[in-house]
């Protein structure tokens, strides 16, 4: 354990970089019109001017909203020590007001070394919050409320949002409410009484541009000279990497990936996959790594499930397809079995099995998620009679059959006839 070889060390180094959002988003924040500087300006001005503020950070999932916010907060904590209290709530966990207020008081208590009572009621907690806001305002301390998954707080009566924003209307308080959501219409969800108390500031997080991605790549993948790794290794690694990055086919791979997934988080996931398959013997990243990572991360789950099916399960799928072509708008296992029998009668297939065997195959299909019940009604009906539907398209089934290792010719024939 003591003497790791440089390759392993480099790998660990790269992996910890990829898992550390602070490191990733730092270079994207440098320019003056980045979201980072806008957000920082807003929050720091409300700290220095002792006013209340509210803002929404909107953008697709994985575009680094929270990461940028964390950067801003950690920088501000260094700039203004002892004047900021950060309260973090998540809509996933605290969408219920009671729970949310409890969590707010808990975090306030731990922050200010107060005794938190689990038994405190909703009313007491909300009074505590208002008192704390006033006290902090008088002491010129700012409370930053971070509401992750903001759209979930907007479900129901929005009492928490109202209480919070209403408390900010007083002159004495000094707080910032930052909502983070992946719904771009999050502000439309708010009630009138809430939205009137909300400053309509929004920051939009967009997917990174091509140049940004390139910068990100270099920022992440090149090993630093001062990381304790042997210098000749670092030089060789970086030179090799430079070659790869300049390669045309590499650029193509990255472009295909970005055409599908373009948020930063997804891109990181892809890089992580590529980096983790690095060969420890040579200690170098290769083009091959990036290629396999692409194929490993872009899965076609439905096609895979079709390939996993046994022949009997394929028969059932095809029978269901035939029923759909015949415009039976709803069907269940018994009708499928009838179709199966007629297929058998007209094609004289060698695969004709008893009903209970087919039923089991049918259940396998349900488990695989290739078919599903059309509704949740009729729970007490047995499986045979509950109406089902196919979850794959004609095209997918056809594709799946084509790539099936040893698909019986007869199945292909039945399929082609349906066209």
């Amino acid at each position, binding site marked *: 354990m003591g003497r790791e070889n440089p390759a392993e060390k480099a790998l660990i180094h790269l992996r910890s970089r990829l898992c550390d959002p602070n490191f990733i988003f730092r270079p994207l924040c440098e320019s003056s019109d980045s979201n980072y500087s806008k957000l920082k300006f807003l929050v720091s001005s409300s700290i220095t001017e002792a006013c209340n503020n509210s803002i929404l950070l909107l953008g697709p999932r994985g575009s680094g909203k929270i990461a940028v916010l964390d950067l801003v907060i950690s920088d501000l904590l260094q700039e203004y020590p002892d004047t900021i209290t950060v309260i973090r709530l998540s809509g996933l966990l605290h969408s219920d007001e009671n729970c949310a207020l409890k969590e707010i008081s808990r975090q306030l208590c731990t922050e200010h070394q107060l005794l938190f009572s689990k038994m405190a009621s909703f009313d007491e907690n909300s009074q505590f919050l208002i008192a704390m806001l006033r006290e902090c305002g008088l002491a010129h301390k700012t409370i930053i409320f971070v509401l992750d998954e903001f759209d979930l707080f907007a479900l129901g009566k929005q009492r928490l949002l109202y209480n919070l924003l209403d408390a900010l209307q007083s002159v004495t308080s000094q707080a910032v409410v930052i909502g983070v959501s992946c719904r771009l219409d999050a502000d439309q969800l708010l009630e009138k009484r809430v939205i009137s108390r909300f400053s309509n500031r929004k920051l939009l997080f967009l997917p990174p541009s091509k140049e940004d991605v390139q910068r990100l790549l270099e920022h992440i993948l090149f090993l630093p000279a001062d990381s304790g790794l042997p210098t000749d290794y670092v030089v060789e690694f970086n030179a090799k990497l430079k070659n790869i990055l300049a390669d045309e086919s590499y650029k193509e791979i990255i472009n295909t990936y970005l055409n599908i997934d373009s948020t930063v988080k997804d891109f990181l996931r892809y890089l992580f996959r590529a980096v*983790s398959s690095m060969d420890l013997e040579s200690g170098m990243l290769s083009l091959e790594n990036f290629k396999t990572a692409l194929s490993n991360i872009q899965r076609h789950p439905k096609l895979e499930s079709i390939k996993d099916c046994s022949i009997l399960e394929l028969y059932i799928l095809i029978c269901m397809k035939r029923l759909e072509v015949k415009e*039976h708008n*709803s069907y269940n296992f018994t*009708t499928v079995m*009838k179709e199966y029998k007629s297929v058998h009668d007209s094609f004289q297939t060698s695969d004709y099995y008893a009903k209970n065997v087919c039923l089991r195959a049918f259940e396998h299909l349900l488990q695989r998620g290739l078919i599903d019940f059309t509704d949740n009604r009729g729970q007490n009906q047995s499986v045979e009679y509950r109406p089902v539907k196919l979850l794959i398209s004609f095209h997918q089934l056809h594709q799946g059959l084509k790539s099936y290792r040893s698909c019986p010719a007869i199945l292909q024939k039945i399929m082609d006839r349906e066209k």
Partner: protein
Amino acid sequence: MVKEESPQITRRTTRSSALAKCPNNVVEETNASSQPPPTLDDLVLGEEGESFSFDDLVSSFPGRQSQIKELVNLLGPQNSPMLPIFMYGGTSTGKTSILLQTFRHLKRPFVYSSCLTCYNPRILFESILNQLILHRKNAENGYSSAKRCERPSDFVNFVREALVSIIGKLQGQKSGKLSSKRSGKANGNMIYLIFDNLERVRGWDKGSTVLPLLLNLYDTLKMPELGLIFVSNTSPDTYDSNMGYVESNPIYFPDYTDDDLGQILMRNQANKKLYTSFLSVVLRPFSRITRRVDELSTAFSLLFRKYCEPVTDLRVVPNEEMKRRLFSHFQPHIAPALNEVFKVSQPCTEVEARERKQKGRTRKSGGYDVVDQLDFHMSTSAKYLLISAFLASRNPATLDASLFDSTGGSNNRKRKRKVSEKSMEQKETAEQELLMKGPGTFPIERLLAIFQCITSVAEDPLDDEEQAQDGLGIQDGHGGLMSDVLLQLTSLCGANFVVKGGSCPLEGSTRYRSTVSEDMALQVARSIKFPLSKYLYRR
């Protein structure tokens, strides 16, 4: 479900019991109450000092090399942070066992919880916390959990606390190792949380909130020392919660190919040569039906016994001639066995039954061959009730009068009407509808009426069914039956032969539906010599 565990370990240590981490010998030696308190070592699978190399790992799972390699790569070298992993693939493709054995190989601490055994959020949360806090339920603490935790928000707080403390311990252990050679066998300071059977969560009451919580847990906790691994039967695209989340790294476990299946089934077989010749006969036809190891191995274990019947010495190495002989003996069993691959209960196949039937025919002339079928331990009146429920479900209510008229039998007058094109069409759609709707529902009054009709037929000595009903005892007449019948009905409901449906909105009374298949109904009818087919309306 786990078939391909490595030979070194017993079956009991594969799944959840791998987490009841006390080695078996400890349990035997010491009393349960005096177990040593759990330590960090209990989060690591495998004995101390044992070496379980990567090659051992790969060789114990045939056909899974690329997946194992990918998993090990993604887990990375010691102390390297990782993004969440999502392992998926069909049932019995070795996901869980490979994962657990990989951890045995790596000797890293992990917390395993299956959403199958932890069947609601509270149990899941508490089981994770118990393992993290190194708390063991025993008589002293009244088998209670370390923390009471029901809400996701509490869970996140508790889990963060627990993780911080355990990571601290792991790091402390590592630094202390140099000085005092502590017994710690855990490698590195990463801790991994494994969620098995994640697809179950979708069916939970609160699944729609728990699922995004789990899938977003990595981003919520933001701890680089935490590794998350999800194991699921179904692919990531089936988790379409309206919440959304950033996907994790997928690792796909495809179903085994025929060759892999052969290799897996060959494991732990005493006579490999004999088994190979057996597999060459059965594997191909069976793998057309299912490629699941668990189902195949149960089906094959019985068949193999059949296959070996002519062989006296089980250690014999079969030659070509013997293979042919065995095959010719075995061949008639294959086709019927294919049609009952999934039957669990009865080891005797249809072939045997047929053989016995042929033998029995000399003794007893035909017809009555329910002897070796399963016998229904039901009272006669319950059987009648079952049949009447079946009739009520199958026959249209309008026909009751003509079927159970005192004159008996059905009149065919109606059906002899001229068949027009349109009525044919109607008939077809009606048939379609019948297939869709399944057995019909009926109110209890109709059931009782039919019941009384058929029992009275059975009693009536003047009826033409007299001979067949000979020796049957429905002694009590109409009067005494009623209370019993209601009791019987509830017991039939309990046995799931008859299910209670929703109440009809117009009539308001509860409606019933019989779930018995026609074969079984006929069998029951035969056992009480009731001419069921006569009363069944065929469309």
